[in-house]
Structure formats: C-alpha cells, structure tokens
C-alpha cells in the first residue's frame, strides 16, 4: 500500500476509534434521532398519520437516517478547523502526506462514524416498532454511504470558505438546519410554495433522504406517496454535487490553509 493510501486509512481509522472510545459523543449522537423520530414522528403520526395515508413514524425514521448521516459527516469535517490546533491533527498537518489525502481520510473516517450512528438509529427504530427487515437494511446501505460521502463533500465546501471556528459555529447551523426541513426529512415536501420548492431542490440533503426512501420503500404500496424522484435521478444529482463540492472545496481548502 502506498504511503498516501496508508495515510488515508490511518486518518479514517483514527476518527473511528476516537468515536468508539468517546461515550459521551456516542450518547449525544443518539439524542437527535430520539427527539426527531420519537417525539416529532410519534406526535405527528398520532395526530396526522391517519389522514396522510402512510405511516408517519416510518417516514420520519428514513428522513432522520439520511439527514443525521449527512449532517454528522459534514460537521465532522468542519471540526478540522478547531482540530488542527489541538491533539493529533497538528501532527497530521505537518506530516508529509498530501493535503488531498488528509481530506479524503477525514471524509472516510467521518463516514464510518456516521454509519456507526446509523446502526444506533436502526436500533432505536426497532425499539419504536418500525418494521425493518434485514433485506431493507442491506438495500438501504448504498444510499446511507452516499449520504455520508455527500455530507463529507458538503462539509469540505463549507470548511474551505470558513477561516476560523467562530465563523464555523455561526455559519454551519445556518446552512444545515434549513436543510432538515427543506429536504423533507421530517415533513412532506410534495406540495411547496415556489420559493420553498426552489430552496428544497438546491438543498443536497433532499436527494440523500429521497434516495434512502427509494430503497426503503421499494416495492411497497406507499412508494409513490413518499418518494419524490427516481433512484437514478437522485443518484445523478448526488454524484454531481459530490464531485463539484469535493473538487472546489478541496482546492479552496488547500489554497487557503496556509494563507493567513
């Protein structure tokens, strides 16, 4: 294995091990899904479920799965801003490994972390009584990986344009929270006023949430009520976003990194 590949694998493994040994972070990563699936999904299902014509708890569950994985990977990447002045990250930046490999390793590592959180969300879904079969988990897996990778590339794009942690703390919620609602993770977005429609369709999270539903609801009677686009359409947009974010983001990050 070349030094760069070894480096990428090392950076990814480090992120994953750090996550597994941080009990508070593991606990915290399950709080959001609990609030959204349990509280929001549960109450909406009880009040609106019968009228909508599909199980709202299941709808929220798939939405939370996509949005959590996307958001978790993105925020993990953005933590590079503060990390580089603390702990082992300082070492990474003075090591001979290329800056591009650092970004790739970080995306892979944060994706692994997000997927581990995904397992927690599945577990939580089962406890809530959401029907999940093993086949469904397997079928959804590629879409989950796509959600992580796109979240990572989105994170790189945000990271490249922010100079310090303070800016990151202020800007990141602004670009991520509206997406939770615009992407249709928690609420149906089939009918939207034109301005919200436009915003929802430029929001990358929309496509990862929809892709997960493509796979999860495949073959079920609710498919047409729940899903917005075809899997191919979603995948094409995801790949396009991924390539553009990753190339422009990494270029800007590498360029700005040393120019202070």
């Amino acid at each position: 294995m070349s030094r760069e590949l070894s480096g990428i694998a090392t950076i990814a493994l480090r992120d994953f091990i750090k996550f597994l040994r941080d009990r508070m972070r593991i606990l915290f990563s399950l709080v959001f899904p609990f609030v959204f699936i349990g509280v929001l999904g549960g109450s909406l299902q009880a009040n609106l479920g019968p009228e909508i014509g599909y199980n709202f708890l299941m709808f929220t569950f798939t939405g939370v799965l996509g949005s959590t994985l996307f958001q978790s990977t993105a925020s993990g990447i953005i933590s590079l801003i503060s990390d580089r002045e603390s702990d082992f990250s300082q070492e990474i930046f003075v090591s001979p490994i290329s800056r591009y490999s650092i970004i790739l390793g970080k995306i892979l590592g944060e994706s692994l972390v997000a997927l581990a959180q995904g397992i927690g969300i599945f577990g939580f879904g089962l406890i809530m009584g959401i029907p999940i079969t093993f086949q469904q988990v397997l079928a959804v897996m590629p879409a989950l990986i796509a959600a992580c990778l796109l979240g990572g590339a989105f994170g790189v794009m945000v990271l490249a344009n922010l100079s310090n942690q303070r800016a990151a703390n202020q800007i990141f919620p602004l670009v991520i929270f509206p997406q939770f609602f615009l992407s249709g993770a928690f609420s149906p977005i089939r009918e939207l006023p034109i301005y919200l429609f436009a915003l929802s369709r430029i929001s990358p999270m929309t496509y990862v949430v929809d892709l997960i539903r493509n796979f999860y609801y495949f073959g079920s009677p609710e498919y047409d009520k729940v899903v917005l686009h075809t899997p191919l359409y979603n995948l094409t947009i995801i790949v396009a976003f991924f390539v553009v974010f990753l190339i422009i983001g990494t270029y800007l990050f590498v360029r700005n990194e040393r120019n202070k």
Partner: protein
Amino acid sequence: MKDAIVVENLVKRYKKAEKNAVDDISFTVGEGEFFTLLGPNGAGKTTTIAILTTTLAKTSGNLKIAGFDIDKNPSEVRGRIGVIFQSPSLDENLTAEENVRFHSILYGLYPFSPLYSLMPKSYKDRVAALAEVLGIQNDLHKAIKTFSGGMKRKLEIIRSLMHHPSVLFLDEPTSGLDPLSRKNLWEYLGEVRAKEKTTIFLTTHYLEESEDADHVCVINNGKIEMYGTPRDIKKKMIQEYILMDSKDKSDLRSELTKSGLKFQETEHFKVELGGKRAQQIIQTIKTELSFLTIHSPTLEEAYFKIIEPPQKDE
C-alpha cells in the same frame, strides 16, 4: 558544517494586519546545532516556527530546510522535520502505541495496519524499546489520558523521532511542566542530541534552557535584536564584576584606588573586571576581605536588557 536551516529575508504579514509579524529576518542553523529563538509574546517566534514547519505561508523570503526549499518541496521538508507543538498533540483517547503507530504510518515508515498485532516485528521491537525509555512497558496499550504531563511530552518527543528527523522543532516544550519533569525532559533531549545528532530548534520562555545552546537569536517586534552564542551575548550585554567588602572599608577603598581599578561603592565595592580575569584582580588585593563574590551574568539578564523597555503581550 552544512546548514540545516537557512532563513533569508523572511517576511510575514498576516491578512488585514498593518505591520509585519516577522520583519525581514535572516539566520542559519548548522547541522546538529542547538539553536534557540527567544523573544517576548508576540515577537514572531511561533509565526516563524509555523512557516518553517510548512503550516503557514510566508509573505516573502527564501527558506531551506535540510537543503530543500520549503515552497518547492514542502513534502520533502515535512518528511525531514519533527515538531513538538506548544499545545499537546496526542490523542487522549488513543493508547501510547496507537499515537506512535499512526505517526509512523503517516510518515511512510510502515504500511497501514488496523491492529498492533498485525504490525511487523521491526515496529514492535522499536516500540518496545521506546516503552522502556519511558518506563511504560505495562501502559503501552492504555489510553494516554492516564499519563502525567511530563510523560506525555516525552512520548511526543519519542514519537517525533520515529522517522529520524534532521531537524526537531520544539515550541515552548516545557511550559506547564513541573521543575522535575523539565529537568528530566532536558536530560532526555541531551541524550537524543548526543545519539542522533539531531538539529534542535527551540523557542522557550525559560531562559536557563538556552544557556547550553550553540546559538541564540533574540527577536522582538518581528526583528532580530541579537544573535550569537550565549557567551557572546552575555559578554556584550552584561558586565562581569566582582563584589567585595572589608571590615576596614577605607583600607580597601584606598587600595582599589591605588591599583587603578574602576569601582563603584554601593552596599559593597563593585569592581569592574576591565578585561582582566577575576583571579588576577583578587590576587592584587592585600586588605583582608569580609565578602567576595564574582558576578557571572546569566542569559536572562542579557535578555531583559535586550528587550527592554517591557513589551506589550500578545
């Protein structure tokens, strides 16, 4: 002696800053040398180290490390330096061995392996030897958050030496350590220098740590105020003198006057050496002395003289 570090006309002005953080400095550090960069907070020390370690871009100037231009060959430079940062650079949740392993893989010493047990024997032997130096044979696979501050610093140094760097940058490595840990760390660094012939580039606020340096460079407001061996700097800045006294002050006074020695009478008689050795002067004194001390200046005194008036903090 070849130069390990060459700095020519280095200038750094941060974006939106009105003045240069580093203002046209030049110096060289020879191979195997122990070099110290001193200066008050905000003088430009950390900026200089960040540029030399390739994490910050310069505004202008020419810089070479181990013969490689840091702009043209940053990767070559990174592979030949080790850095001990001001703030700890170990992952607290990882074990000592993991911290060392990840470093080694990033520097291309060994291929990636997710587990210690899968690493080659040469790596395991080396880690075992390092564990012995630190006395952590039993704690090698424990999270380092259980280690003391001094042990962590030592582990960082050991880790940074894994790839046999030609230059080791130490940015205030002993700040926050207790005196005993500091002493141990310096003893260990002394052994490293003797064994590995590593060039040491140090910034520190503890001036006594620079007394053994080959060269000291004092910077202030981004400019070099003084450069030389600690001995030269002390000689230039601080006069050596003898303090003496006698029960019979008038006898001593007249003897000193007669012998033509320059002196001041304060609490004691402060006699300037005037180019002579202390021994020579003492031998000429016949009056019985009740007090005698030779004042040899410290680098700290010289430093305070150089940077006065007191500077504002960062």
